[in-house]
């Protein structure tokens, strides 16, 4: 860059080159930008410039300085400006010895002041003075905030005029710096600035050097070459990629691969998840609504920030999967099996057999399939169309159904004679009664019949106060259904405490939220009334010695109280009627008839096991033992490296509250998406997260295909990879040589 003669020619003679400009202001006024604008004006005239601020830790209001230099040659001076030719003072109150320091006689001082030149008439005569009320101008133009008026741009306009620079240069500089919107203010200042010449001959006063302040010492205040070291020879143990059993899987009575379907949902979407789920689960939308979810009680995430909402995810998959059931290929040796009863156990058995290509007929006494799912679960928990959809998928496997005939023992025996095998899964037909005086009064009903009547549209209108005796799901279903049918109030009388109620916890919570009252540690001992039930005597129950199951035995006391009662619903349990099951070698039982566990998921598992037993026995093989993981191979909370996972509370299902408003519309709308699946730790199942690979201090774990390979020559057996695996998908094993 040579000397720029045109640059020199484009600015007035009086401006010396090299030129040094010093701007004084207060933090927040924009002094540095002011200096930058001034420098840019000269740069636009073709000159070399340099501009910088005197940076400090100053806050708003503290004095600051900024500098600009202008020359015809590149500027090598990196010092601050000590001998300014031009001083721009953004705040007249700053004007003092410090500001004027180093300015020679004849220097120009541009001042932002509301008082014009008057006050300086007999002061600082050796300088040329220029003044403008930049604050008032900038305020009029709304530059800055209501608290702080920013005057830098305004003052730059005044500077150009005072120094005799062309207005066009100002316009260009503002454009270059992206400040064109401030031009009108600059122009007003350009027009308004006034100035006064310097007094020839007035000399600069001699300034005495101020000694530097004493400083107190701090102590007075208080690419690798190949590695020649075969670290593999150090090893006594070797890491192994090894899956372990997730507790959710172990906890699922239906035998679902929970971690499998949840991970599939998280990584592959609904269809992928459904493929895993449908290996064992014919009723995902049903279980996804009414299962007590023992998997969730077992979930390792419960020990961290709340169990994964597995049931909600199962429902999501069941409700959103597109797949219709597809007829599987026929078995090599197809068996012909009859299933009596179409509750969850019967459906589970039929599904398991049909999936393997066997011929299955279902016999159901009612007119529709579903058993207790259809008759005993209120529609606000399990809408009919949801049940129909799940059952439809089972029938699509080729299962045939005969409805409307109840089979007695003789009919079942006939069936057994013409089929390879019969599975009886007729559920619990015997209802437990209440042994108390007055139970025969009209107004005392079996809860399960009541629910069935409601489903058939034959429900009694209820009014007044309804009492439900019992503490299981049937009791809660009865209570909430009673509310929906017009009962003014409903009380559940249960002989143990809230924690002991066998009903699903959230169902109880919802019942309470809907207004159902709980009379805990209470047992009806007498039903009173004339012509129909009118009141009920409840006795207090105390907890006595533990019984064989470890639960404390309830002891009914003599302390009683009567409460008004317009209807009493009994939900005290059911039992199997085994008289319909003849003893035949090709006849098997399943579900509550076989186990009495009383949940849909247990029944499904029982049905699946019965199917396996049937096939084994027809093949002349011993009863199959379905493997249960031993405790050592389970992933316990202590195996999960919680710190690997962000805390993220479970997603809640969308429950609507209000029995009267909702009627029999579904209360629980489910999760609002499948993202809950990504909370799953994937206990015991490798997710290819690379953690082992990244943590290996030797760097000897490599990706191969879908997994990893450990370089045995260098693995020193430190076990870091296994310790860092967040989910126990690895294990250390003793080397043969070290065993």
């Amino acid at each position, binding site marked *: *860059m040579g000397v*720029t003669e045109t*640059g020199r020619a484009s600015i007035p003679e009086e401006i010396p080159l090299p030129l040094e400009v010093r701007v004084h202001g207060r933090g927040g006024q924009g002094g540095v930008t002011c200096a*930058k604008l001034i*420098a*840019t004006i000269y*740069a636009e005239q*073709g*000159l*070399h*410039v*340099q*501009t*910088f*601020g005197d*940076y*400090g*830790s100053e806050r708003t209001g503290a004095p600051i300085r900024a500098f600009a230099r202008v020359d015809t040659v*590149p*500027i*090598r*001076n*990196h*010092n*601050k400006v*000590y001998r300014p030719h031009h001083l721009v003072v953004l705040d007249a109150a700053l004007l003092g010895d410090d500001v004027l320091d180093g300015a020679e006689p004849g220097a120009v001082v541009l001042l932002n002041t509301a008082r014009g030149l008057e006050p300086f008439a007999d002061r600082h005569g050796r300088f040329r003075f220029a003044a403008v009320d930049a604050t008032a101008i900038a305020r009029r133009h709304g530059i800055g905030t209501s608290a702080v008026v920013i005057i830098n741009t305004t003052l730059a306009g005044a500077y150009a005029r005072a120094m005799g620079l062309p207005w066009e240069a100002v316009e260009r500089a503002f454009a*270059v710096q992206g400040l064109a919107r401030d031009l009108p203010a600059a122009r007003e200042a350009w027009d308004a600035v006034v100035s006064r010449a310097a007094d020839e001959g007035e000399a600069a006063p001699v300034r005495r050097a101020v000694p*530097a302040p004493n400083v107190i010492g*701090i102590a007075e205040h208080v*690419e*690798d*070459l190949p*590695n*020649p*070291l075969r*670290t593999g020879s150090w090893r006594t143990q070797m890491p192994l990629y090894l899956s372990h059993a997730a507790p959710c899987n172990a906890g699922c009575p239906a035998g679902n691969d929970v971690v499998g379907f949840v991970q599939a949902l998280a990584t592959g979407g609904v269809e992928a998840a459904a493929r895993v789920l449908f290996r064992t689960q014919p009723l995902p939308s049903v279980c996804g609504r009414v299962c007590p979810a023992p998997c969730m009680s077992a979930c390792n995430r419960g020990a961290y920030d709340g169990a994964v909402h597995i049931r909600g995810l199962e429902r999501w998959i069941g409700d959103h999967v597109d797949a219709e059931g597809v007829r599987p290929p026929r078995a090599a040796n197809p068996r012909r099996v009859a299933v009596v009863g179409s509750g969850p156990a019967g459906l589970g058995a039929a599904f398991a057999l049909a999936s393997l290509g066997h011929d299955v007929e279902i016999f159901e006494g009612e007119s529709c399939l579903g058993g207790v799912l259809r008759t005993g679960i209120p529609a606000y928990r399990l809408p009919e169309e949801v049940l129909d959809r799940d059952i439809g998928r089972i029938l699509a496997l080729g299962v045939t159904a005969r409805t409307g005939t109840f089979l007695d023992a003789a009919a079942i025996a006939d069936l057994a004679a013409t089929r390879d095998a019969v599975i009886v899964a007729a559920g619990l037909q015997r209802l437990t009664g209440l042994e108390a005086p007055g139970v025969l009064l009209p107004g005392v009903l079996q809860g399960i019949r009541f629910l069935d009547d409601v489903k058939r549209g034959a429900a009694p209108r209820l009014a007044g106060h309804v009492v439900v005796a019992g503490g299981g799901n049937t009791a809660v279903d009865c209570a909430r259904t009673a509310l929906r049918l017009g009962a003014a109030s409903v009380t559940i009388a249960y002989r143990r405490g809230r924690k002991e109620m066998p009903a699903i916890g959230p169902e109880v919570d919802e019942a309470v939220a809907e207004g159902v009252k709980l009379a805990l540690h209470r047992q009806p001992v007498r039903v009173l009334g004339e012509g129909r039930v009118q009141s009920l005597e409840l006795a207090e129950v105390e907890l006595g010695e533990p019984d064989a199951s470890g639960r404390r035995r309830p002891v009914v006391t003599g302390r009683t109280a009567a409460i008004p009662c317009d209807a009493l619903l009994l939900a005290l349990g059911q039992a199997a009627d085994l008289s319909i099951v003849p003893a035949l070698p090709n006849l098997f039982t399943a579900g509550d008839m076989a186990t009495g566990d009383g949940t849909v998921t247990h029944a499904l598992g029982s049905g699946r096991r019965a199917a396996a037993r049937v096939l084994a026995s027809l093949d002349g093989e011993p009863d199959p033992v379905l493997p249960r993981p031993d405790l050592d191979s389970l992933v316990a909370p202590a195996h999960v490296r919680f710190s690997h996972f962000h805390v993220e509370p479970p997603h809640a299902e969308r429950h609507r509250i209000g029995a009267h408003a909702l009627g029999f519309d579904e209360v629980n709308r489910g999760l609002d998406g499948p993202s809950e699946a990504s909370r799953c730790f994937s206990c015991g199942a490798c997710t290819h997260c*690379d953690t082992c*690979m*990244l943590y*290996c*201090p*030797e*760097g*000897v774990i*490599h*990706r191969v295909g879908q997994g990893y390979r450990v370089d045995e020559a*260098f693995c020193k057996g430190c076990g870091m990879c296994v310790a860092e695996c967040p989910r126990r998908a690895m294990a250390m094993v003793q080397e043969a040589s070290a065993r």
Partner: protein
Amino acid sequence: MSGQLLSANHAAAIGAALAGRANRTGRGFVSGVYPITPSTECMELLCNQEIEKGHVVRVESEHSAMAVCIGGAAGGARTFTTSSSNGLAFMAENVVAAALLRLPVVMVAANRTLGPPWNIWADHGDTLMLRDTGWIQMYCADNQEVLDTVLCAFRLAEDRRILLPALVCQEAFVLSHTMARTHVPTQDEVDRFLPPLDLPGRLVGTARIVGGLTVPQTTEVHRAQHHQAMGRFFEVYREVQDAFEAVFGRRPADPVVPYRADDADVLVVSMGTIGSTVERAVDVAREKGIRLGALRVRTFRPFPAELLAAAFRGRPRIAVIDRNVSLGFGGVLWGEARGLADPGAVVQGYMIGIGGGDVRPEHVLALAEDVASRQAAGAPVLMEAGA
């Protein structure tokens, strides 16, 4: 007249972005950044650049910023970061790692005083603290030099004969925040100057860990290779100067920049912008008939010992200015340069501008006078510039 009015921080960021885009046909550009006064503006501008195949990753610390660069460089990307002072101190572990892994990361440091107590102003102590980490170190004296040196640094660092990270140093505020006219090259020019990075043995498909356990003999070999790569710097740098001049039409300054040094009775040696202050003092002295001369050390690592020894030959009095104190010793540059003079020559150390004091020509003239009056060198002198 061409050139944009830019701060050196912005010039550095623009240089890095141009270099990053120039690797678009290679493996792209990666930068890990974390702010610290006075290098924040550099990273901020970089974050706002559109860079094809570029990733500027904002991380939570300087240590991670360098880690991002290490990962990026190991994957074959062109890499850049910027930091300062205590940020560099925190980054140090990975600064060492980048060098020992021979990764061609380029970093711009805004030289700032180490604290506490906190002081944001210029001092070379922060990058000199990293003297022995195995990085190339170059110190700049003006805005244009910062941009040009960033571009040269990539080409040097990535040269197969060198393969070392390079640190470009610019003083806090005196350069970082000072605006001056700067020539910004076109992308096409930079493309011609900087070929796509072709790193041997880069990580591409398979993740693996680099830098596992080693043994003494391996380390001996690694160090020897590293040292030899440093030794090839000056030869390669000459080629880079030629190539730069051919493309951009101006020649980057030499590793040691002399100024009226040939006939000097007193030679003043310095680094960074103080070098230009010294040149101004030389002009003033020469006007008075005093034969003062100057040397500016632009490349500090590798140390230009031969170039300095040649320039010292026949010079009886040498003053070395350090804007740093190696506490308990003296100035770092003085310590390295004092053994290179003729036998019997006086090499006196002066530490000035510590903590950001404004070193001016009068200070230089005063110390030149001091060294001229000495018959033998004494203990290094700590001068106060104040301000």
